[in-house]
């Protein structure tokens, strides 16, 4: 299997989000950046295919400036073979999707993996757009992927259910928990990653469809009203009076 794994470079899930005073960007002071947790499911699954069959290739891709390179190196340390950075400011989902589609065009990838969403923008937008640009089948929120006789067999998550699907290869897949287990890179992987190719390619020109005007924190919550544990039933009368139950 020849896979392209598209990763996002996002603040660690424990980050206390702060924005710069002009409200234009994230204040990155003291922020640890990681591979998007959902993206990592696709990365590990792609590596597993290579391990199982002893053949194949895993390219990891990220759209961004030089600051995303440590995140790409980490993906190489986990086991990807080559990394590509598309040198551009990921201004919106359409811009990123166009870059990925242009890069993937004609390279005969069997699978193009994404996380089900970026935990930074929560859009779930790029994978479906790439599928549309490349006219490929798309399986969203995949929790299981196997290959048999050249056909992909997948589970796709729904609310309280999942679908069992079969897709021709190539296809685009967005990954949800269950598809694979996260891996921590070992020392050997980290050493090898230093010698693996990481190339930067210029971004294609795409005009922004959506721009961010301002980023701000949500308004603070009011104070918590405490109810005495010995009088817990009082909570019920409050909720009932407010029509909440």
């Amino acid at each position, binding site marked *: 299997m020849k896979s392209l794994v598209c990763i996002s470079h996002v603040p660690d899930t424990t980050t206390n989000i702060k924005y710069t005073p002009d409200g234009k960007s994230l204040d990155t002071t003291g922020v640890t950046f990681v591979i998007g947790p959902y993206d990592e499911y696709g990365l590990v699954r792609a590596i597993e295919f290579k391990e199982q069959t002893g053949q194949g290739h895993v390219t990891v891709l990220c759209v961004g400036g030089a600051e995303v390179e440590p995140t790409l190196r980490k993906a190489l340390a986990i086991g990807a073979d080559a990394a590509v950075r598309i040198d551009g400011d990921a201004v919106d989902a359409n811009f990123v999707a166009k870059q990925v589609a242009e890069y993937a065009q004609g390279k005969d990838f069997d699978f193009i993996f994404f996380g089900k969403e970026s935990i930074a923008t929560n859009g779930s937008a790029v994978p479906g757009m790439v599928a549309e640009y490349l006219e490929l089948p798309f399986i969203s929120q995949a929790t299981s992927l196997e290959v048999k006789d050249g056909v992909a067999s997948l589970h796709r998550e729904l609310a309280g259910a999942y679908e069992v699907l079969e897709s021709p290869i190539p296809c685009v897949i967005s990954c949800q928990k269950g598809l694979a287990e996260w891996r921590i890179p070992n020392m050997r992987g980290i050493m090898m990653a230093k010698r693996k190719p990481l190339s930067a390619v210029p971004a294609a020109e795409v005009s922004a469809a959506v721009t*961010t005007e301002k980023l701000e924190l949500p308004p603070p919550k009011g104070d*918590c009203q405490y109810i005495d544990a010995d009088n817990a039933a009082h909570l019920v009368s*409050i909720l009932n009076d407010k029509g909440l139950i």
Partner: protein
Amino acid sequence: MSVLLFAEHWNGSFKKSVFEAASFAKTLADKLGGPLHAVVAGDIADEELQKLGQYGVGTTHKAGDARLNTFSDQAFAKVISTAASAIGAKAVVLANTYNGKAAGPRVAVRLDAAFVPGVNNIPEATSEGFTGQRPTNSGKGVETYRTHRAAAVFTPKVNSFGLNEAPVDHSVASLAVELSDADFAVKFLEKVVTSSKVSITEADIVISGGRGFKGPENWNILEDMAGSVGAGTACSKPVSDMDWRPHHEHVGQTGIQIAPNLYIAIGISGAIQHLAGVNSSKNIVVINKDPEAPFFKIADYGIVGDLFDVVPKITAAIKEVKAATA
């Protein structure tokens, strides 16, 4: 300046999320001074479609191809964009359900429209497109966005607007869409139901448990309470990681994000990753024995106490109230 709603249905029946998306779309259409249309795919009775008229849909365009009875993001995107082009829609609205999220980005590409996912307020029209706000960074921040295309595709968050009836005369028109086998490349084999309970993304009330329950054997305490108010049940990540509860009940940054009217968190300390999945809830009740639990900082109501003592008392009180009003 018309607006198109994708009216998703489940084997011929609508769910609340569609009427909520219709309420959003109708408000937007009124702002633009244009009509609200809807598009449906697959078999659905006209009687069910009439319900859309209650929420302001004047015309529903129906693509009745039997192959559309199972979801295909490719085929559905073709149907939706065909309808949007036919009526010259300035905005296309899909609830951000699993299928809405899958088809929406394709529709945006097909229409060369701006894609604005997970919105939780009504956009304003600008000379260039739209502006508005949406949650970002998993609800830890708010983004003011601006679109730069003639049309935009919005996927409003489920449970963020509520229902707003605006009855109009409703008619059904048939929509011809040329679909090829390639649009159905992904084959549907079966659907496996993993939970028959209330869907937590659509539930008005969600009750959630954490490590404070000490083990799966104590979950009946939570389920009793949920049963007394018809709530959905959820859990924190550690609980799902330890297999006390299935993954599809895990709410949080890497689980399901929910926005119920009432969220009751029991025995959950409120780690930042958990809060990211529930911070859109309209009312939050926290029950925890640790007065320092960070969850109290975003709670509306809090009880510091032992859940094994407090929760059964609350359940009993709810049952009393319900019995008195039944």
